[in-house]
């Protein structure tokens, strides 16, 4: 039984027939970690945003369904949808520098959701916020709660955002390249923390990344995207042993290796890209007719 179930989701660039997501189907079960990989612009972030209802204004869902815990989000009125998503899902955003409101203290930014969605009183929400900050290994949670975002370092802010995501006990976390904006030295700690929290809270996790190395370590399954089209969806073990799709194979081969840092990077061969493009064109042909 999958907690998040996406069927034939198509998103177009508003005002055009150009698709950004092409009939994407995806399942994430209740405690599973699903990796979403692909090149820049492959639509991996777009899927997470569509689920959470924060697609940019220029993108519009034209067909398909997104079921969260058995409820089709796309047929709900906006207000109901927001409350449902707020209760069951949360986002760990990409850039901790812009994901916290610079004009507000940390405390309300964590507790707003507890008060708005769960109906807690401020005092209880505050206790919970301090507790969850402690869980993400932030020393002196009370001091941090009173701070403004600019008083915290990037890694600290990302910890606050992780705490904030888990505070209301959501069942699905969407992590949108949560470490790309961070210093390499803190990336590893933050990744570890996300999976520690995911395991402890037993949530489903949709992990958007272009780092296959990370996926191999922490995900159970992964979905490979190209041009908004699903190329391959597989168990992580099987995938890294023997990727089925030629594009996946090429992507895997293109991953830089730590063991040989001086080796030339392997680009994805033109023939493979041509084939992936053909698949995209064929999908569009079926869709347009």
């Amino acid at each position, binding site marked *: 039984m999958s907690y998040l179930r996406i069927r034939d989701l198509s998103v177009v660039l508003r005002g055009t027939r150009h698709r950004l997501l092409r009939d994407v189907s995806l399942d994430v079960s209740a405690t599973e970690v699903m990796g979403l990989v692909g090149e820049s612009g492959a639509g991996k972030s777009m899927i997470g945003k569509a689920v959470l209802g924060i697609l940019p204004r220029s993108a519009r869902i034209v067909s398909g369904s997104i079921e969260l815990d058995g409820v089709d989000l796309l047929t709900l009125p906006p207000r109901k949808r927001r409350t449902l998503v707020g209760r069951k899902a949360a986002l760990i955003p*990409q*850039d901790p520098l812009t994901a916290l409101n*610079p004009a*507000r203290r940390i405390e309300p930014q964590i507790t707003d959701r507890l008060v708005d969605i769960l109906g807690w009183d401020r005092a209880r929400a505050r206790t919970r916020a301090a507790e969850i900050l402690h869980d993400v290994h932030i020393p002196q949670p009370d001091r941090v709660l009173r701070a403004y975002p600019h008083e915290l370092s990037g890694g600290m802010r990302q910890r606050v955002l992780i705490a904030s995501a888990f505070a209301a006990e959501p069942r699905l976390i969407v992590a949108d390249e949560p470490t790309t904006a961070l210093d390499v030295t803190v990336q590893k700690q933050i990744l570890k923390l996300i999976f520690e929290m995911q395991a402890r809270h037993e949530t489903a996790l949709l992990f958007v990344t272009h780092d296959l190395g990370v996926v191999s370590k922490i995900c159970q399954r992964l979905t490979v995207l190209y041009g908004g089209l699903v190329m391959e969806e597989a168990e992580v073990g099987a995938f890294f042993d023997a990727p089925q799709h030629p594009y996946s194979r090429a992507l895997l081969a293109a991953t830089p290796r730590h063991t040989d840092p001086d080796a030339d990077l392997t680009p994805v061969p033109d023939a493979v890209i041509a084939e992936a493009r053909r698949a995209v064109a064929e999908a569009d042909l079926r869709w347009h007719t």
Partner: protein
Amino acid sequence: MLDGRSLVKRTAGLRLWLSAGWIAALVIGAVFAPWIAPQDPLMQDLFTSRLPPFWMDGAEPGYWLGTDSLGRDVLSRILYGGRVALIVALIAGTATALIGATLGLIAGYFRGWADMVISRLVDIWMAFPPVLFAILLIAVMGTGLTSVVVAIIVIDWTRFARVVRAEAMAQGAMDYVASAQVAGRGRMSTLLTEILPNVLSTIAVLLTLEMGIAVIVEAILSFVNLSVSTDDPTWGGMIAEGRLSIHQAWWVLVFPLVALFLTVLSFSQLGEGLKDRFDPVLN
């Protein structure tokens, strides 16, 4: 230690205190004008006409900044004229800010048709030459304080609308707005708690600039005799009258001009100073 930040802070602080000091002095002078003005600003006395300011030969005690060609005390008239200037600055400035910023926030955050309507309106509005537009409005509404205030609001709301719209758009694209939305916030509540606090400093700066502009517009209108009634002293009116006797009594023109200049400068510097002061990143 004198690092860059403390230097910025110190000059910002000085600027803030000087400009706030001038405006405070002006406010006190305007509010208590009946008690502190040395003379009746309307009292004409041809025996004391064109008296020079206190440091020049022929000055009379009690007429610190001299008198105009009708023998009226320049200092007293400046104090009373400050009343009109400040009332206009306060009421017109605040009302303009409220109306313009509200429309700007709506256009910038909700976008869609509301943005279309408001932005086109701003474009059309800005095509009118502002001072001629003001004179036209006063001609239709008749002279008086209310007309001046209304004219300033009608002309200048676009300044706020345009800047606040751009700012709201930029803030609306930030991740924290998306985060708030994921956390189940409604659009209106996101606008008020996430966007508004971040554009507030911009609005405050614009507001002080607008107050300076309001003072200038009022002076222009009273210069061409389209502001309050001719009996009440106004800086613009004094400048217009002083212009006629500049070769005999330069002080009648210069002192109100200096008051006007310092006031407008202070308002704009106050805005800059406040911006630095309340910028959480700089502090």
